[in-house]
Structure formats: structure tokens, C-alpha cells
């Protein structure tokens, strides 16, 4: 058998709690044994709208926090922005509701084998998977700095517990409603240099990831980013979620961000070619 989707299981997950945090919903679900295979960077695909829903596709969400201890056994925490009809439906589910989910899907953030200096950059709800990642990195002895950005304060997701697992946290808002006025990339060069960053991990809007990629590349640091393309299937069978990735031979391959991602090496993503006709074949 193939190893794609290897640990993915389709299960019924109970909603244990649903709390509003700023403009997001923090949703805790119980998933049992499957947490054993869940890693920061993986995502979950959730059916929305109930039995007779006109929404035929699942919605993808990053795993924000994975826990296999506690009274409910294996649990996953999701940070959901009420964006359109599907995510709004999910945000309206209350304790006891049963969700049809598939997880873990996609690849995970690569974890350095040695203790290095890492910088985690999150945009909006993109910070969700970074706190879980921070814990793992910490456990490996890495230094973990974090910078988060959003248009406005309520769109910053930075839970108190999360802050404990990072060495430093900077917040940027475009409207100056909290933290520094500006964007996460504004002083990125300086931060990389001053803090001797070895690896950047990022998650957020594509434009942010592209900007970080170019800075990381000139600074010569590794950049692992979790991308977010529209996904119809989430399991690699439909080819909707592709991104142009430069191959070693210089050609461009349209790779599926659901199985070859969502975590990708920022330096090989051809950001300028996203959404263009890419005549170079795989």
C-alpha cells in the first residue's frame, strides 16, 4: 500500500467546548487514539452543514494543539475564523455536537535534530499551529521566538498558555490596535540577524508567506511555511490544491498542497507563478 494519507482516519469527533477568543472560535474536540499520529503542521478535514447540507466539500483546519492526556483522552484544539458558511456552521456547533472529521492529513513541520534558533511567524489564525510547534521545538532544546501579525487586535490569536512555550513574542497590527504598528515582515531582516535565526516556521496568508520567503532566502535561512490553497478533497485525489514548486532540474511541478504540503519549503515555492498558467510540465 501507498504511504499517502497513512495515518488518516475518518472518525466521529465530539465537540467538548467552543469558546470565542477575539474574532476566532477555539474548538476542542475529542478524537481518541488518532492523536498519536497528529503532528504540528497536519490538518483536519471536517464535514459541514449536517446531513442534508448543500455544502458537499470538507473544510480544512490546522491542528492547533494536540493532547493525549486529560479526562477526554485524545483531543484536538482548532482555531476557527468564521469566514463563510462552512466555518460559520462549525463555529455554531456547541458542546456535544458530533463532527465527521478526517485527520491527520498533510505533512508536518520538520523538526531540527539539533537545538537551533527558530523564529515562528503567524498571520491571523495562522498562529494556531505554531504554539503546538513551539512546544515540540522547546522540548528539542531550540530557542523559540515568535512574531504574530494581523490587520487588527481581535485577529491576533495568542493564548496565555501558548506564550509560556516561547522565549519571546512580538505582535504587529496594521491598525496599531495592539503591539507594534506594522507587518511581521517590517523588521524581519534585523530580527533574523540579531537573533541568529537558523530556521523560520510560518503560517498565514499566502502574500505573507511569499514575503517571508524572499527575506529568508536572501538571509540564507531555512523557511518552512504552511500554505493554504483551496482544497476540494484534502487527500490528494482531485488536483485542485496545487502550487508551482521548483524542482532540482529547474522545472516546475504543480504539487498538491494537501499531501505534499501544507508544510512546504518556502524557497522552492514559485510564489510569482501561483495562479498563473504554468506551461512547464511536471
Amino acid at each position, binding site marked *: 500500500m501507498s504511504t499517502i494519507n497513512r495515518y488518516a482516519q*475518518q472518525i466521529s469527533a465530539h465537540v467538548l467546548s467552543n469558546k470565542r477568543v477575539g474574532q476566532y472560535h477555539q474548538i476542542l474536540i475529542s478524537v481518541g487514539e488518532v492523536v498519536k499520529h497528529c503532528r504540528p503542521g497536519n490538518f483536519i478535514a471536517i464535514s459541514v452543514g449536517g446531513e442534508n447540507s448543500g455544502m458537499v466539500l470538507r473544510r480544512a483546519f490546522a491542528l492547533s494543539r494536540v493532547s493525549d492526556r486529560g479526562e477526554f483522552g485524545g483531543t484536538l484544539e482548532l482555531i476557527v475564523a468564521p469566514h463563510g458558511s462552512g466555518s460559520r456552521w462549525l463555529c455554531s456547533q456547541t458542546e456535544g455536537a458530533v463532527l465527521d472529521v478526517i485527520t491527520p492529513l498533510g505533512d508536518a513541520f520538520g523538526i531540527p535534530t539539533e537545538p537551533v534558533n527558530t523564529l515562528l511567524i503567524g498571520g491571523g489564525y495562522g498562529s494556531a499551529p505554531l504554539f503546538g510547534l513551539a512546544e515540540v521545538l522547546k522540548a528539542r532544546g531550540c530557542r523559540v521566538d515568535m512574531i504574530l501579525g494581523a490587520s487588527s487586535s481581535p485577529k491576533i490569536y495568542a493564548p496565555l498558555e501558548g506564550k509560556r512555550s516561547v522565549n519571546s513574542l512580538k505582535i504587529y497590527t496594521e491598525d496599531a490596535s495592539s503591539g507594534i504598528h506594522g507587518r511581521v515582515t517590517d523588521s524581519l531582516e534585523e530580527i533574523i540577524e540579531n537573533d541568529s535565526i537558523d530556521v523560520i516556521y510560518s503560517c498565514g496568508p499566502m502574500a505573507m508567506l511569499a514575503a517571508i520567503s524572499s527575506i529568508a532566502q536572501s538571509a540564507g535561512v531555512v523557511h518552512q511555511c504552511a500554505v493554504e*490553497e483551496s482544497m*476540494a478533497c484534502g487527500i490528494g*485525489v*482531485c*488536483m*485542485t490544491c496545487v502550487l508551482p514548486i521548483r524542482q532540482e532540474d529547474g522545472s516546475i511541478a504543480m504539487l498538491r498542497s494537501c499531501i505534499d504540503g501544507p508544510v512546504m519549503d518556502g524557497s522552492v515555492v514559485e510564489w510569482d507563478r501561483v495562479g498563473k498558467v504554468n506551461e512547464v510540465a511536471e
Partner: protein
Amino acid sequence: MTLDFSTTLGPAWFPAPIFTASGCASSGKELAQFFPLKSIGAIVTKSIMVKARPGRPTPRMAETPSGMLNSIGLQGPGIDSFIANDIPWLVEQGARIIVSIAGETVDEYATLARRLRSVPGISALEVNISCPNVENRGMVFACDPVSSRAVIDGVRRTLGGDLPIIAKLSPDVTDIVSIAREVVDAGADGVALINTLLGMVINTETMRPHLGGKTGGLSGPAIRPVAVRAIYQVHQALPKIPILGMGGVRNGRDAFEMILAGASGVSVGTATFGNPKAAIEIQSELKALVSAKGFTSLKSAVGFAHREIDSESAKESM
């Protein structure tokens, strides 16, 4: 009473009547984690072309009420890589394989047939003629009886008499029965009904077509009534020609509806995106429904909706 659940599409025999739909199961690998591929009728692979293709620009999909649009643009590795990597892997799984082929010229289809004719382990070719014909102002082959015929004719000649050909038709035509007649006449052993309907979504934020490719193919439960009608019409006109039905099937009831309309097998496409186990679950549900209605074989239910009420007692004897 045991049920004979097997089916045939022309000379090809399958132990069960549920298939994947082309382009909705890639080449099977990704689904193998969710159910054993050999447990369903066959894997119909994503339409393959002669050369590798990058496909259309993203966004490539839009969800629509009870359906979705896609504009993948036949991204794929090209026939060489496909024959070298995908077929052997599927054979190893014990899966039956229907290879879907697509081209931009009549010749390209023939070339694909030539490459595939001696590859072991293939049960049938599905010929996806819903592609723009670059030699005829980009008009989709399946929308023109002459081009449809030319493609099937070319494939039949190249292939010789062995491998069954299933011509996959587009619903975007004035008269699907006349297209079916042409391809059957040109040597198709059966027809696959239906491919997606041409549609468009405009993003009201950007005020531009949402898809990178502007238009896309509409699939999912939304189109099921159109698919059932097409199957019913073609079965009525050509009752001896096997039909592989598809379009919006998401449960056993839907598959049964297509069988009753005249399909000998049913492909599951978009439903797999919502539920990776859709094909195998639909297969069990269908089996239960066909049995519950007292049929002793799947085949005796094929096209049953066409029979007069008073011939109901003829059920067992067919």
C-alpha cells in the same frame, strides 16, 4: 437468496458495479488507505494524455449549492510515467483498472490507444472526449458528432478488437442520444454518462470569474437529475449498449436510481471528496437495496424503470 452482484461493460466483467470516476481518484494510491481498491468494481484513473501537463491556473475549484466546479485542466504525468508507475502499482493491489484517456487531436487518442493496447492488467479504456479539439477551433469533441465519431474510430482501429472502449459523453449537447449512436457506430462497446456540465461562478468580492480557468465543470448531487435523464434516454434508444452512469451519486439510493435508469455500473466522483470511503460504502448500500427489492442479480435491475408495471413479475426471469 444470494445476489449476483457482478456486471459487465461489453466484454469486460467486474465482480461489483461501483467504480471510481475519472479524475476523482487520481490513480488510486491516495484512496488505498481508506479501503482495499480491489473491493470495488474498478478504479477508473484520471484522464491521461500523451505528454505531461501542468493543468490550469488556480483557483481550480469553487463549491456551489450541492455541487462544485473544477477546472483542473487535465494535469497529469503523461502516458509514459503512467504506464511505468501507476498501472503496475494498481495491478499489484489486485485492482481492476479502467484507463481514461484524453487528447487534443484525433491522433493523440490513437497514440494513447497504441501505447496502452499491450499493457497487461487493463480491463477497459474510457475515452474522455470532453476535451477541446485543437484542430477544430477548440470545439469540444463530445459536442460534435463527427469529431466524437472520429476519435472512437481512431481508437478502435488502433486498439484492435480486444480491449473494450467506453466513450465518455458530455451532457452539454442538444441531443445526447445522437452522439451515443455515433460513438457506438464507430465501435464503442459502451458509453459513460455524464461528464461535468459547463458552469461558472463569479466572485462577487473581486467581481471577476472565480476560477483561474474562468469556466469549470459542474459535478456533484446538483447534476444528478440531468445524469439520470441522460442515462434513461440513451438506454431507451440503445437498450443493448452498456452504460457506466455517474453524476452526483453519493449513496446507495442514488446508485440504484442510475441502475434502474439503465446503467450497468456506476462511478462515484465528487462524493469521494466529501467521504473517502464513499465508493465502498455506496457499494454495500446498493447491494442491500437491490437485494431488498427481490432482484437475484444486479443485471436484472438494469433499466428496470423502463419496464411496464405489469411486467414486474418478469423480474426474476431476466
